[in-house]
Each structure stands twice: as C-alpha cells, then as structure tokens.
C-alpha cells in the first residue's frame, strides 16, 4: 500500500474538501471538524461524482413526526439521486433498516463490524503525518 502526501494540513481547514487523482482514481479528502476522511469520488449506484454532494446529517425516526438528526456533516448526499452515505464507513443509508441494526453498538466501531447494505462507497485511509495529509492507497 503506497502512501501519498496530498497537502499540508493548513490547506485543508475544517469544512473543506480536496479533490485529487491518485493512480488514476478520483479521490476526495474531507476535513470534518478536524477529522479527515477520504472517499472514492464515485457513487456505487450509478457512478456520479459522489463527493461533490452536500454534507448533511442523518435523519432517523422512532415515531412519525419525530426526527432525530445526528452525524451532522458526516453524511454525503449524492448529487444525482440523493442517496446518503456515511463518510466514515462509506455505508449507504438508503436502506435504513440495516442502519437500525448497526445503530445499537455505539458509533465508534470500525466499519468491518457493520452489516453492509447493497452499496458501499469506497473509503480511503487518510492520516496526518508531520502536518501533512497522507492518503494510503
């Protein structure tokens, strides 16, 4: 697995995202409140530039009219068909029953423990080393 230095941390302040191509693959790196996430910039549904979509929260409900809004800024919404993906895991939320299954363990588990929906956006490991943002690919 190669390591790619993509930017100094200063170039990616919280709330920003950077689009780049590594080994011919379109990648986007996000800084969400100081945490860095990388996603393949291609929606697993129909190939749209997923990472150009807005970052929103996750709406869930236990009773009609009551909405719990969590994961603020951590859900990327595809600009083509509005499908929602968790920026941390790449997990699709268009089948929220699966979400409900995985919601019982608290959100700090690694993605490998979660039940997968039909589509998973490809995530890319991002690390900060010596003030540089590094992508492992």
């Amino acid at each position, binding site marked *: 697995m190669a390591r790619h230095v993509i930017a100094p941390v200063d170039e990616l302040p919280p709330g920003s995202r950077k689009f780049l191509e590594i080994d011919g693959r379109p990648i986007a790196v996000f800084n969400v409140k100081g945490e860095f996430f990388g996603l393949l910039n291609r929606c697993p549904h129909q190939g749209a530039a997923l990472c150009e979509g807005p970052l929103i929260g996750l709406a*869930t*409900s236990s*009773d*009609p*009219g009551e909405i719990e809004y969590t994961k603020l800024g951590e859900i990327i919404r595809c600009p083509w*068909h*509005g499908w929602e993906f968790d920026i941390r895991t790449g997990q699709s939320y268009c*089948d*929220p*029953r699966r979400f409900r299954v995985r919601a019982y363990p608290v959100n700090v588990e690694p993605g490998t423990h979660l039940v997968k929906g039909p589509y998973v956006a490809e995530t890319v490991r991002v690390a900060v080393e010596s003030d540089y943002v590094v992508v492992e690919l």
Partner: protein
Amino acid sequence: MTSPIAGGVDCDLHPAVPHLTSLVPYMTDYWRDQVTTRGMADLISQSYPVNSPISSRPDWRPAQGKPGSAIADMQAQALDKFGTAYGICNPLYGVQMVFSEDMANAFCRALNDWLVKEWLDKDDRLRGSIVIPVQSIEKAVAEIERCAEDKRFVQVLMLVMGDIPLGKRYYWPIYAAAERLGLPIGIHAGSAYHNPPSSVGWGSYHIEDYVAQAQAFQTQLTSLIVEGVFARHPNLKMVMLESGFTWLAPFLWRLHKFWRGIRMETPWVDRAPLEIVRSNIRFSLQPVDAPPEPDTLNRLFDHMQSDELILFSTDYPHWQFDGDAVLPEGLSPDLVRKIMIDNPLATYSRLRVKETTP
C-alpha cells in the same frame, strides 16, 4: 377456466340500500322526520350509476329495483354459486358525500344497523364492514366502537377518494381504533365527490372516473406509507377493495426509487415500501386488469414477490367477469387456495373467531 374451491371468503359484496326510506326505521325520530319532511329520496353518487354497465352484471340485474338489493339474489348468484363460507358486505351508499357530520352520523348508524338486521341476521355466512361518518373523527371512532361489539363486523370501510389524503394524521384515531379492535380498514373504490375524481380536474365521462380509481389508490398508498401510518400502527391491515392490483409492481418500483433518494424527508419510513405493502396491505381480486393469458398474469404475481397479497372477491353485483370465471386463467391450485381461503383468514382476524350472535 380456473375453478373456485368451496369454503372461500368473498371479500367484496355490495348489498344495495333500496331507497333512503329503507333506512328510516333505523333512524331517530328527528332524522326520520327530516328525511320525510325534506323529501330526501336517495343518496346515489356518480361512482356507480344504477344503469351503468359496471354497476351490475346483466344476468344479475333484477327486473326492478337496484342490483344487489335482494338477499335471495346475492345468495343464489354469489354465495351459493361460488360455495362461499363467508361473504363480507361493503355497502356503497352515498353517506360520505353528505357535508353535515350530524346527518352523516345519523345515516351511517342507520346503514350499519340496517346491514345487521336485513343482511347479517338473515344469512350466517355474511359479515359486515362498518361504514363511518368520516366527516367527524370523533363520531367515526364512536361508530366503530359501537358496531365492533358485534363480532360479525370484521372491517371498517372508507372510500378511496375523500376530502384529504388518507395518510394524514387527522385520520389516525380511526386507524388506532381499528388496530385496537382487530378490524382491517377496507378502502373501496368510490368518491365522496368533494374533490374531482381525478387529480387533473373534472372529466366528462363515467369511464374517466372509473379508470381514475386506480390512480387514486396509488396516491393513497403513497400517502399512507410516507405519512407513517404503519410505523405508528404496525399491526394495522388495510385492504384495497375493487382497486385492481396489476399496477402494483410498477407503482412500487417508482415509489421505492424515489424513497431511496428522499428518505430523509420521511425517516419514519424505515422499511422499503414493498416490505410495508407485504406486511400491511392487501388487495381484492376483482377487477383483474390484465390480458387473459396465464403467463402474463403469473409474471405479474412474480413481480409482486408475494402470494399473500390478493383476497378473493366477486365484487357482486358489479360486472367484472362473466359466467363462472371469477378466477383468472392460470392460477395454480396452491395460489387459488391462498387467495380464496388462507389470505382472507390471515387478514380478517375476526373470521378466525367463532362468532357469537349478540
């Protein structure tokens, strides 16, 4: 021809009120005098004009009077004819059109009491649907509770086209009462004619109204699902009556597709629409809007991904089929048994309880 089997449940029979005066014996003194002094004659909506072909099969049309108004005719032409064990009576009388909630309440009470005395008491195969004054939620719930004491009432009846979409929370006390009392909500074709019977305005011909019923059912299904009726009332069953069902698969393809994209607007819809339909929605058999080729029909059933959705119905006396061909060609014996017996018994919990005439 696919032969029906004995012991089936006919989920859509229409006993006709001969005349508004037929209900007068079941009204209070005040409403009896209102009917007579105002000269009120009848409540016939344009959903089923008496002389329209849809309103009666030609060989079921009596020499005089409304089709479906004589119990002997229903017995001979529907119950005996198809070996029916239970027949569910869904009176289609224009009480939903009335704008006064007090008058609607008086007429509904009379209609339900008339059904008990003139039909249910006269043939122990018959079961009833509670017609409710939807003009008032409080009165509708009270009427459900009043009638539900008689276990021969197995369902609550509403029309597919009323004043507002059926998923709106305004109606939810009705659904809560129905769920609590083990009564499915039957949604029958027909309109209160408070809105145009199509979403695009008033048409010119009866065929426009009748064909538009299928669109109304689709719109109501969307409303019921996205408003969260079945999230709040997971045990509530709803039965689409005289809705047709061949449109279901493509309708669900569309609903499912857009639900995925705008799921966050209605996060209480926590299952795919198809799964909600499978667990909570049923459809009466007639009319079968499909070509008569068995392969076509069975492909439609495959697309529906369930053999539990369809409930046997003749839609008596409406003209949906000729002769004995109440079942479409190509149904397997297993599917016939499910449609005629298993699915209705699973849907109408009150049919599974040995009835006690009060």
